[in-house]
């Protein structure tokens, strides 16, 4: 166990390894480590942001759904109202129509009654004349008494 040149040889080797390590080993590896750290931080950040976005979107969706339901309810109510209105209108129209039909029928009936009356009136005159003829037998001048009979028929 002698102290000899080995001590200097070892120091030189040590120096070379340290310099090599300092120049070519340490910087690239620590740079990669730092970059990975940054990447991980960014990833975590992005995940946080995404979660927040998702929450926001969910809130928005819930809000939209609520609004949609409200609108639908309003539309249904309006439709019901409109339907009732249409029914009312239809009823009114029907009543009106019925009135009109009834009036027309009444008028026609009256007319027919009148016609029948006129016809009856004519026949009554003839019947009365024939009756009177039978009663009086040929004593009646048709022409002379026609005026009289007509007057009678008009009174019927």
């Amino acid at each position, binding site marked *: 166990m002698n102290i*000899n040149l*080995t001590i200097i*040889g070892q120091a030189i080797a040590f120096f070379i390894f340290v310099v090599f390590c300092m120049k070519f080993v340490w910087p690239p*590896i620590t740079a990669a480590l730092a970059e*990975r750290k940054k990447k991980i931080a960014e990833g975590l950040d992005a995940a946080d942001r995404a979660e927040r976005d998702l929450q926001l979107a969910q809130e928005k969706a819930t809000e939209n759904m609520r609004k949609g339901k409200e609108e639908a309810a309003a539309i249904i109510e309006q439709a019901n109202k409109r339907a009732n209105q249409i029914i009312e209108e239809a009823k009114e129209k029907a009543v009106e129509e019925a009135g009109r039909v009834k009036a027309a029928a009444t008028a026609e009936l009256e007319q027919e009654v009148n016609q029948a009356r006129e016809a009856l009136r004519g026949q009554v005159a003839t019947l009365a004349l024939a009756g009177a003829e039978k009663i009086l037998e040929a004593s009646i001048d048709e022409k002379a008494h026609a005026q009289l009979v007509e007057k009678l028929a008009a009174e019927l």
Partner: protein
Amino acid sequence: MASGTQTSSEYISHHLTNLTFGSHPVNGMSFAHNAQEAAEMGFWAINVDTLGWSIALGVLFTWLFRKVAKTATSGVPGSTQNFVETIIEFVDENVKGIFHHKNDLIAPLSLTIFVWIFLMNTMDLIPVDWIPFVAGQIGASFGADPHHVYMKVVPTTDVNATAGMALSVFALIIFYSIKQKGLGGFLAELSFQPLGKWMLPFNLFLELVGLLAKPISLALRLFGNMYAGEMIFILIALLPFWAQWVLSVPWAIFHILVITLQAFIFMVLTIVYMAMAYDHH
């Protein structure tokens, strides 16, 4: 595994001797044949095994981490990248917890210290005879006596390796102390604490001891722990082969903790010392 031709003490000292190459006064440039020859080579010799294994493991470390760094993605990491990232984040957390200044060197420095020392310490878990035996056979094929081919596979059990790193850290401590506080500020810090300027020699002595204790404690703590651990493994290896596992397995499991802990302590103390170099007292 004390063979017939080797006594226990020879076996142990064989395992504790580095493969030293240098200029021997008698043999010229050669590998030392024993510890005494290695000592005779003096300072101008190198421990080939220590440097070889530490550089190989350092290259393994830089190769693996560079491979990941080249393809590092900020997306989903592969298993290798995941593993490397775990280590880097562990080191980074420690650096950020202790050292609060802006310095691009400290974190890679700490990473290198932690992983490299961990890998060097891990060599301790390879059974003590495997690599020395292979090395002996290779040496024998070149015509050398296998008993004289030394191979200490754990670089951190060589005080040269730990001291080499500790002194590098010490140089950085001095450099950053002067850079942050100025030469005057650094000297003032050594001279006028803790007892004021009238006790300057005493202060200087105290602070210098404190300063020098940093690299020495760094080097010797790691060296001592690993040397002692290795020693235990070698002693266990002296038992009959069928009984070794009773001790070597628990010791190896315990040693997993030790090798990690020692790498971690070296790293944390380096960070603390660098933070002290930056802080004004």
